[in-house]
């Protein structure tokens, strides 16, 4: 187990490093002057001095200096918002995105799993069909469409929730629901198909024949192996939730990290881009690792092999 962990950590480090390098290459390849943020031109001498100051006059140097700073968790200055450091910007925006992403995933699991189990138990009835229909609609609706519809319904027509901003539970409700919807659909469907397979297996029939309470059979014995694909899906799904929250952030005006990704690239702000990429990909790698660990732990076959 420990060996597996170390191997994954090592792989994760390599991944983050590769991501950083790729982003860096793209950053220096793309034309555009990060020092000119206003409409007036910066003097040549000033630009040269600023480049020297921020180690940006030599690409190699900048590459290593940035990494060194990143190891100290110092991502340097940003040129778009000169009064703030990358640390502050990422530090204020990343938790927001992570919060929405994690809450959406948790909601998806808490609603999707029971829904899938319920549908599987009542196969071919209207419950099952409507669940399937809901699932299909859920994965076919883009989040900005659902988000905007929810805004129009809850904020404008019924005036139940505030429209934009950030700071209370009322600001969390709609973004989390919007982001959770497609994942709920996927998880419900995964659970349902998993349950189908498990419920038709011999050991379940035996359990039923032995006279065990049906609820116990379903929820205790059958669900564990049925959940395997769901857990396997959670890793990449959380990654998707984190990136998917960019759209949700834009719809609801939530101050997450998505806008900074886009704006930093469009404004050629190297520091913020590289910092955001480093932090974000580290998070992704970590979540993938956690999900894989969970999958490995749950599946006894793989656990045995370890």
């Amino acid at each position, binding site marked *: 187990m420990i060996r597996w962990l170390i191997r994954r950590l090592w792989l994760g480090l390599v991944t983050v490093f590769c991501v950083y390098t790729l982003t860096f290459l793209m950053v220096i390849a793309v034309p555009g002057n990060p020092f000119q943020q206003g409409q007036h031109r910066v003097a040549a001498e000033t630009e040269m001095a600023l480049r020297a100051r921020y180690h940006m006059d030599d690409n190699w140097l900048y590459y290593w200096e940035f990494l060194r700073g990143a190891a100290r968790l110092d991502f340097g200055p940003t040129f778009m918002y000169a009064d703030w450091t990358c640390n502050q910007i990422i530090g204020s925006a990343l938790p927001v995105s992570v919060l929405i992403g994690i809450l959406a995933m948790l909601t998806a699991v808490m609603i999707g799993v029971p829904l899938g189990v319920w549908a599987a138990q009542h196969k071919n009835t209207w419950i099952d069909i409507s669940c399937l229909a809901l699932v299909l609609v859920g994965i076919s609706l*883009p989040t900005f469409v659902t988000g905007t519809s929810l805004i129009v319904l809850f904020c404008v027509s019924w005036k139940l929730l505030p429209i934009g901003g950030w700071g209370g539970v009322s600001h969390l409700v709609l973004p989390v629901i919007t982001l959770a919807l497609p994942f709920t659909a996927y998880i419900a469907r995964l659970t349902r198909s998993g349950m189908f397979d498990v419920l*038709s297996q011999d050991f379940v029939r035996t359990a*039923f024949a032995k006279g065990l309470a049906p609820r116990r059979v379903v929820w205790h014995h059958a669900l564990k192996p049925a959940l395997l*694909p769901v857990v396997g899906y959670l890793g990449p799904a959380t990654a998707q939730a984190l990136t998917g929250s960019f759209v949700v952030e834009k*719809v609801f005006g939530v101050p997450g990290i998505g806008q900074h990704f886009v704006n930093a690239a469009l404004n050629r702000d190297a520091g913020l881009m590289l910092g955001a990429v480093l932090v974000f*990909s580290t998070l992704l790698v970590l979540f*993938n690792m956690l999900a894989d660990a969970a999958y490995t732990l749950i599946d006894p076959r793989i656990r045995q092999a370890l």
Partner: protein
Amino acid sequence: MPDRVSQLGGRGREPRRNRAVAASVTFLALLTALSAAALPFASDWHDVQSLDRAVRHPPSFQPVVSPEVFDRAERRPGEARSEERAPHGLKNIAFHLTSLLGHDDLGRSLMFRLLPAYLISAGIGLAAAGIAMVVGVLWGMTAGLIGGRTDLIMMRVVDVLYGLPYILMVILLRVGLTPPLSTLFHGNSPIANVVVLFVAIGSVSWLTMARVVRGQVLSLKESGFVESARVSGASTWRILRRHVLPNLVATSLTYALLVVPQAILQESFLSYLGIGIQQPTPSLGRLAADGVEAVNTFVGFWWLLVFPCGLLVITLLALNIVGDALREWFDPKSRAATLL
């Protein structure tokens, strides 16, 4: 209890599902045909039509633009307007349908933007699926067959690419590739735009395929299929062609088909964020995003929102239904953790 158990594993709702699949396929085929037929009338969608009457006009059964504007007669500078030439034939039909879905804020007919938009989005989806299939199958097959260290390295590359925050890659690719691609396509930046999106979306959609194919190849190897072929003296290439590939085709086709709606969805997200398809090129995502952004409490341009979003959702639904059905047909035991 036993009744329920015996029901499980039965054929179940086949008739209903077949009806849904048939409906979806018909819908998609009709839509594609319609869009292809509408192309000539939309070919210069960046060429704005009338500016006064048609701007932001709600849907109407009567065409709002004048026939000669629709006919796009090339007037010589300084010439007086020629007499209204009535368009004939297919053009006539198209002319009468011009204002059916309303007009946007530049006076362009939504009908003749939405239909080509569908083609462009479908094109992006298919291109992404194509890249996914070609690159993914080759990659996974090579890794699975060769095995050993090569396999390890190749799969690590896939893992690394999985870790990329792909939206950032799309942004950087778009910002970086569009100028050189524009010069390549002789200043035609819509094509450059679309190509960049092909590349960007395609570059992340082959990963899952590679993993799945590799898994399949590994299980094929284990099943002794490949070994017996080798024992009987077949060359690697022949093994590949005769024994491995046919088994992969079904699976890869199914997953490739599932890539299409995902790619269209991704494109709509990117367009909404402002880094996908740019004006004036239409795509389902672009038009849906524009419609969403125009939502306000003052003046309702409902047709700009309802029709694009509706078409987008219905298209995705149809593609998902078909892809789903195919998946269940080809590979009923699949652990749909690869639903990504």
